[in-house]
């Protein structure tokens, strides 16, 4: 397809869907409510939305869908750190009932016992998986869950009278950037540590900066390199020794489920991304879901309300004076919570551990295949196993051919593959990160590695083919320079019309 932007498809007078109109009895009682609007309150010009028959709207979006590469369609190991795993179709069937879609959060609690039980059970499962005491499922994404971690930490220190004193947060460069960003947004000074020569987080560096001003350490483990910090408990103990808290970003938990737990290493608070680790679909970038798990000491600070169980009855408890309050409307992204619950219940303890072990097996198998490609390397911790992903480098290939990792990624798309070129932080040169998860078969991993090997071959033998990619996509090479120029950027169709055609 070469599907136009939807505004180009308008035909005056066409209708896509009709709306229920006021009944004659209502009209008689209320008169002309639009004409009666106060001065200046009636919209003068109709909104310039397109006018289209229903089938044309449908056709437009179905064609756009076919121009999009979902995880169901490709060997989606190239979006490293994203944990692209199978989102089971049965879970979509399960949630598509009016018993969930048409449930209002303020209904009589007697009418919502099913969803409350599911949410309560999911909290308990996350508590067991993390080793923590209490869980909240309110947040609707990973980064906002990290925000919730720091918001609870802030409230905790304030409750202890140390809110003013503790104004620093320590993180590592290979922890997700949201740890740094949310801490900053919460008012903290951020200290970022870099790895030691072997790629492990530098414990000596931590020792040098931690102290009475430290509110928390906020770290990921394994980090985005796929390297597990073996001294993590030492880090946590160090934090506790100065009165700070330890916050664990479990975005990379997929390889350690059932193997090791946050609380066992002493962490006070952690979060999971249900849309990564627990198999809810990524939805083009959300809705996600975060699960915040905390120790008993931090439980009073969890967002409210919480679900309480009394025998077979479940209820919402809002009477929690130390809570940080609401972090989102109502009680979390219900469709994702049901999906995550179903995912856990389809696998059980044995299955969840098999998820981790298979993800790690896949990762180390793929690493072997990738490192066989001339020009590819895996910086840090040479020869060591990795957990669930690896941050690789094309530096050697780049030095030899001048082809960058980004160019390789664009060319890989011609083979129907994703390849993640946006590798914050830019510490590893010419980086690429592969995370095969547990969802792809050996044959598929071989196929993915073969594509990268082929592109690397092209980079050497026919570099122009790589440099001028894409050759096989809906659109051709796009001029991204305009997107940073306020005079040229066009964030909406109306702005495009104004800037480019008037």
């Amino acid at each position, binding site marked *: 397809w070469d*599907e136009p932007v939807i505004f180009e498809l308008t035909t005056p007078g066409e209708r896509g869907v009709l709306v*229920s109109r006021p009944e004659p009895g209502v009209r008689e009682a209320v008169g002309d*409510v*639009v004409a009666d609007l106060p001065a*200046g*309150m009636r*919209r003068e010009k*109709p*909104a*310039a*939305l397109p006018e289209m028959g229903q089938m044309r709207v449908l056709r437009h*979006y179905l064609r756009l869908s076919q*121009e999009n590469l*979902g995880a*169901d369609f490709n060997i989606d190991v190239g979006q490293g750190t994203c944990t692209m795993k199978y989102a*089971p179709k049965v879970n979509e069937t399960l949630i598509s*009932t009016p018993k969930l*879609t048409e*449930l*209002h959060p*303020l*209904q009589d609690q007697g009418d919502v*016992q099913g969803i409350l039980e599911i949410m309560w059970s999911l909290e308990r499962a996350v508590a*067991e*998986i993390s080793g923590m005491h209490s869980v909240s499922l309110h947040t609707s994404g990973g*980064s906002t869950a990290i925000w919730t971690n720091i918001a609870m930490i802030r409230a905790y220190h304030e409750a202890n009278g140390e809110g003013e004193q503790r104004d620093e947060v320590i993180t590592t460069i290979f922890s997700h*950037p*949201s740890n740094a960003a949310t801490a900053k947004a919460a008012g903290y000074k*951020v200290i*970022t540590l870099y790895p030691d020569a072997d790629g492990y987080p530098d414990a000596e560096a931590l020792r040098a900066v931690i102290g009475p001003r430290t509110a928390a350490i906020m770290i990921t483990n394994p980090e985005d390199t796929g*390297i597990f*910090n*073996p001294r993590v408990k030492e880090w946590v103990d160090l934090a506790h020794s100065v009165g700070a808290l330890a916050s664990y970003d479990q975005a990379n938990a997929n390889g350690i489920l059932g193997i090791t737990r946050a609380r066992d290493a002493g962490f006070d608070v952690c979060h999971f991304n249900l849309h990564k680790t627990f198999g809810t*679909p*990524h939805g*083009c970038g*959300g809705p996600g879901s975060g699960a915040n798990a905390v120790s008993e000491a931090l439980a009073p600070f969890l967002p409210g309300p919480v679900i309480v169980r009394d025998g077979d009855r479940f209820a919402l408890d809002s009477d929690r004076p130390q809570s940080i309050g609401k972090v*989102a*409307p109502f009680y979390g*992204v219900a469709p994702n919570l049901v999906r995550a619950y179903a995912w*856990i*219940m*389809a696998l*059980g*303890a044995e299955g969840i551990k*098999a998820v981790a072990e298979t993800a790690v097996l896949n990762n180390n*198998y793929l690493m072997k295949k990738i490192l066989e490609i001339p020009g590819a390397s895996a910086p840090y911790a040479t020869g060591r196993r990795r957990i669930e992903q690896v941050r690789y480098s094309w530096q050697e290939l780049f030095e030899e051919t001048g082809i960058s990792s980004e160019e390789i990624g664009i060319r890989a*798309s011609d083979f129907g*593959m994703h390849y993640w070129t946006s590798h914050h*932080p830019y510490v590893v040169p010419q980086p690429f990160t592969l995370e095969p998860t547990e969802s792809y078969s*050996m044959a598929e991993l071989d196929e993915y590695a073969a594509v990268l090997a082929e592109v690397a071959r092209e980079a050497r033998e026919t570099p122009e083919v790589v440099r001028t990619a894409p050759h096989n996509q809906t*659109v*051709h090479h796009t001029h*991204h320079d305009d*997107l940073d120029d*306020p005079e040229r*950027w066009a*964030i*909406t169709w109306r*702005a495009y019309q104004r800037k480019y055609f008037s």
Partner: protein
Amino acid sequence: MTQPFVHPYLPNTAPDVKAAMLAAVGAASTDEFYADIPEGLRLDRPLDLPAPFVAEQDLVRHVDGLLGRNVSTRERLSFLGAGTYNHYVPAVVDEVINRSEFLTAYAGEPYEDHGRFQALFQYQSLMAELLNMDVVNVPTYDGFQATATSLSMAGRMSGRRGVIVASDVLPDKFSRVHDFVRTNLDLTVVPTVNGTADVAAVAALATEQTAAIWVETPSYSGAVETAIRQLADAAHAVGAVLVVGTDPVGYGVLTPPADQGADIVCGDIQSLGLHQWFGGAHAGFIAVHDDPRFVMEMPSRLFGLATTDVPGEVGFGDVAYDRTSFAHREDGKEWVGTAAALWGIAAGVYLALMGPQGMADLGETLLARTRYAQLQLSAIPGVALTDTALHLREFVVDFSAASVTAHAVVDTLRAQGIEPGVAVGEYELLVAVTEMTGQGDIDRLADAVASVVAASDTADTSTSNTEEKSA
């Protein structure tokens, strides 16, 4: 277990494959991969989780059984709102967002994920037409976050701490906004008069320390703010900005805030094609004019249209990516992460289906049914409206003259299969009507309320003068 564990979600649990892969990497078992995890941190027992349902049919029976214990608003007559609304979702919306291509994609690049970029660019553009503004973000989590971020933008732009809260705000939203901004901003609430902003009082409070005046329309009580122009003037007079939190559902007929001087318009799009989902389907929008001072303060991704090597062809990409925490960690604007993209696509499909006439019809239906419900309920002796403002979709009725508590009304009507609204005070009930609640439904509500009040009347006949309080 003696049988090997093979699961449909885990292809490489097939024993032969697993053995081949281990052999290829030279490992005796998967344990070797965990060499970096100290023994003391290793869990030495299986997780204590309920027995799973590995056969899909058993899983379905289990989860369906749990969900079957819910009773939905299709089975009840619901007038519940307060942040989540029972609007109709056209079937085409669900068809599109349930397409595997959209549902399971994530963060691919503009080439292989062209459809996602275009769909979200179109969402931005369609919202822009409805709001009459030039810049709209890829959705953030929800209206709470959109508002908190909008106020924070005002603070960052001005370097000031003051925010004047001019309208009644949903308490949960206020909670979220307050905890989010409290390090950087101070919120001052100016009580409303007759349901809407006290313009004079707000203007009097605005100073050189004011970063923003914050208006909500429709407000917590469903009141439409009709003095946005004056509030904008008051803000601009002191170099502050006007932030309008809103639900865009009414702008088929109502004048958009941008036409009345609003600088930042934000809110939630749950009303535009998302089911109620137990309150779990929200997404936030932030709209500004095409002014780099504002744009560069937005933390969310912004998809933009760009030319390609082929003349006439359009491609898409990220506008001003350097704003974001992806690019600059703590030096970015707040943060960006997985938020609510799919709901944005849904809202885009919804607006495309509705078109200008559909949104106009919807706005009129909502105004008419709201007014009708106000008339029917306030016609009941002992029941009064709490204000005479213009309302869209929600309003508050007061049972104090009938000496019936709102909770008593709720309890009695629930027993009849009606959720009459949300009790927001001892005697006050917040009632929401939508295009889904027809005349017959409203009449049924009014009849049921009248019966409760009449029953109470028999016990307590002091209902004189209540008519006067009605609008």
